[in-house]
């Protein structure tokens, strides 16, 4: 049984000196340079400027992660920036290509709808039984093709498991941002049974998608259509669908995260999350709580934005399967008991090295995956300032 006593000095020090942090950050600087350049230095001065800003942005954040020992604080800055600039970039792209954010029937029939990872759970059963992808997107080529999203998803799942939801998902940063606005939550009590809701949404959409061969979640529920694209309102049915997804966006992405300081959409509704949680089982990284160091202060339980730590799980020395590896618990733990961990290794050994290993994988993924969209978003903001138009 763990003793409860006041927080003390961190038993395990994760801060590094500036010199050591710089040395550890050096490989990341080279890797991000290589991945972001893609073998070509931008010739346009504005593009070069945007590239330099993005490159510095990521590498300064990574250096600070190593130097201060704080993970979530700097991850959140990169992750939220990614989501916001993704919206800027995507919406501008839609206006450029179609003249509006709405999808016409013509574009749906032509299969020109960008594919996102949230559709993946619905496509698996119909693809297995009918060899059909039930989404009007392009298999290869074009903008956000189905094949490219599948490849990115498989890569992310193998490398980070559900870490995708905190390091890779271009929507997740939105409710993450709103959950950080207030200093203290106004709504504290959340019935733990609500954590089953994403599984129920997953079950419902998988079954209905298989029955009707239609991506039910995209058609009816996806709140993120509010900030990306949506079907043009041409009928009563589409009007109702529009009211539903806008209401869900306001409730799940803005209001509830604001009031609870939790990532409500990601942890209590998104059907992709439970499927991704299953990949946590096969992923090499997880978060562990060392019972020998833990002071049972419960800060991690209170702070976890995804309700992935309970008192029982603390006693068991681990997080729940739904853990998104955001690093909040690692940051708030006063004794350093919560730490990133590599499966199959002793919890108490080489903690800094294991954290570094995870950060290399997760941060490199985030930087590589988001850099293009961040650069495009920045370019469009500069264009807006200089020309008055984003497109």
């Amino acid at each position: 049984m763990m003793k409860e006593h006041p927080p003390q000095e961190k038993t395990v020090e994760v801060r590094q000196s500036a010199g050591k942090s710089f040395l550890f950050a050096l490989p990341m600087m080279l890797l991000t340079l290589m991945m972001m350049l893609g073998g070509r230095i931008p010739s346009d001065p504005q593009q070069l400027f945007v590239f330099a800003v993005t490159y510095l942005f990521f590498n300064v954040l990574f250096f600070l992660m190593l130097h201060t020992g704080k993970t979530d604080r700097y991850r959140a800055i990169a992750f939220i920036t990614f989501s916001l600039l993704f919206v800027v970039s995507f919406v501008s792209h839609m206006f450029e290509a179609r003249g509006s954010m709405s999808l016409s029937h013509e574009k749906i029939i032509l299969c020109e709808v960008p594919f996102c990872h949230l559709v993946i759970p619905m496509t698996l059963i119909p693809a297995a039984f009918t060899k059909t992808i039930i989404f009007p997107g392009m298999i290869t080529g074009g903008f956000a093709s189905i094949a490219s999203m599948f490849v990115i998803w498989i890569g992310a799942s193998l490398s980070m498991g559900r870490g995708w939801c905190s390091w890779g998902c271009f929507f997740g940063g939105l409710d993450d941002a709103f959950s950080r606005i207030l200093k203290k939550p106004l709504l504290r009590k959340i019935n733990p049974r609500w954590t089953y809701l994403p599984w129920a949404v997953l079950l419902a959409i998988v079954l209905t998608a298989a029955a009707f061969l239609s991506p039910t979640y995209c058609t009816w529920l996806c709140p993120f259509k509010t900030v990306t694209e949506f079907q043009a309102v041409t009928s009563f049915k589409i009007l109702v669908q529009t009211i539903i997804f806008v209401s869900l966006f306001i409730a799940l992405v803005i209001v509830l995260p604001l009031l609870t300081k939790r990532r409500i959409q990601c942890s209590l509704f998104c059907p992709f999350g439970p499927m991704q949680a299953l990949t946590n089982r096969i992923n090499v990284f997880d978060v562990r709580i060392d019972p020998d160091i833990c002071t049972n202060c419960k800060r991690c339980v209170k702070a976890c934005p995804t309700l992935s730590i309970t008192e029982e799980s603390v006693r068991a020395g681990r997080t729940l399967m739904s853990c998104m590896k955001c690093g909040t618990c690692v940051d708030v733990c006063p004794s350093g008991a919560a730490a990133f961990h590599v499966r199959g290794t002793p919890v108490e050994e080489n903690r800094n090295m294991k954290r570094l290993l995870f950060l290399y994988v997760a941060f490199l993924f985030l930087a590589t995956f988001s850099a293009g969209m961040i650069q495009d978003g920045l370019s469009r903001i500069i264009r807006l300032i200089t020309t008055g138009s984003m497109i």
Partner: protein
Amino acid sequence: MQGFVLGLSSGAVCAAYCAPVLVPYLLGEGRSVLQNFSALLQFLLGRLLGYLSFAVFAWGIHTSLPQDIVHRNLLIGAAYVILSGLLIFYSFFKAGRACPSAGGQGIDHWLRDSRPSLFLLSMGLATGLNFCPPFLLAVATAAEQASLLQSVLFFLTFFLGTSVFLIPAPFLGLLRGFYALHVIGKMAAGLIGAYYLFIGATMLAGGFFR
């Protein structure tokens, strides 16, 4: 024999149409495999009643109702509304219900607990009246039968052929040890019920709102 083969060849689609109703129920109940088989039989009996009533109807009118869009939408819409009512009722009013914020328990003991067969029969009947693609084929063929007996026999054998694909469903009982699945099943039933409610309502509106 033709009905049975048609049922076998298109049964996977039938199973896909029945799964959104049956799977959440079986998961939510958390019963053993044997009890689930009993539940499946009750559900199938309801579905058979739906099929046979259609056999009589199809033979009686000697025409393919599916081509009559207005009446087809009315019937399917009504079936969806009934299904949605049953699913939402199941999700919200069962003792130890799924929705943490739902309040009140009323007539549930009468309809759900004391008469489970009535509940499953109703779900089976409403599912049986749905026009899934294989069912449309069966209706079209049954309408061409010479006698009422032939039409009924055709639907009976079609029903047997499609039912084969539902045999794995009771094995969900192997997962009954996971308490979380009981809650998830009931929550999913509510969500699917809400989805069916809107589909049914728009169909009943008969295209007025479309």
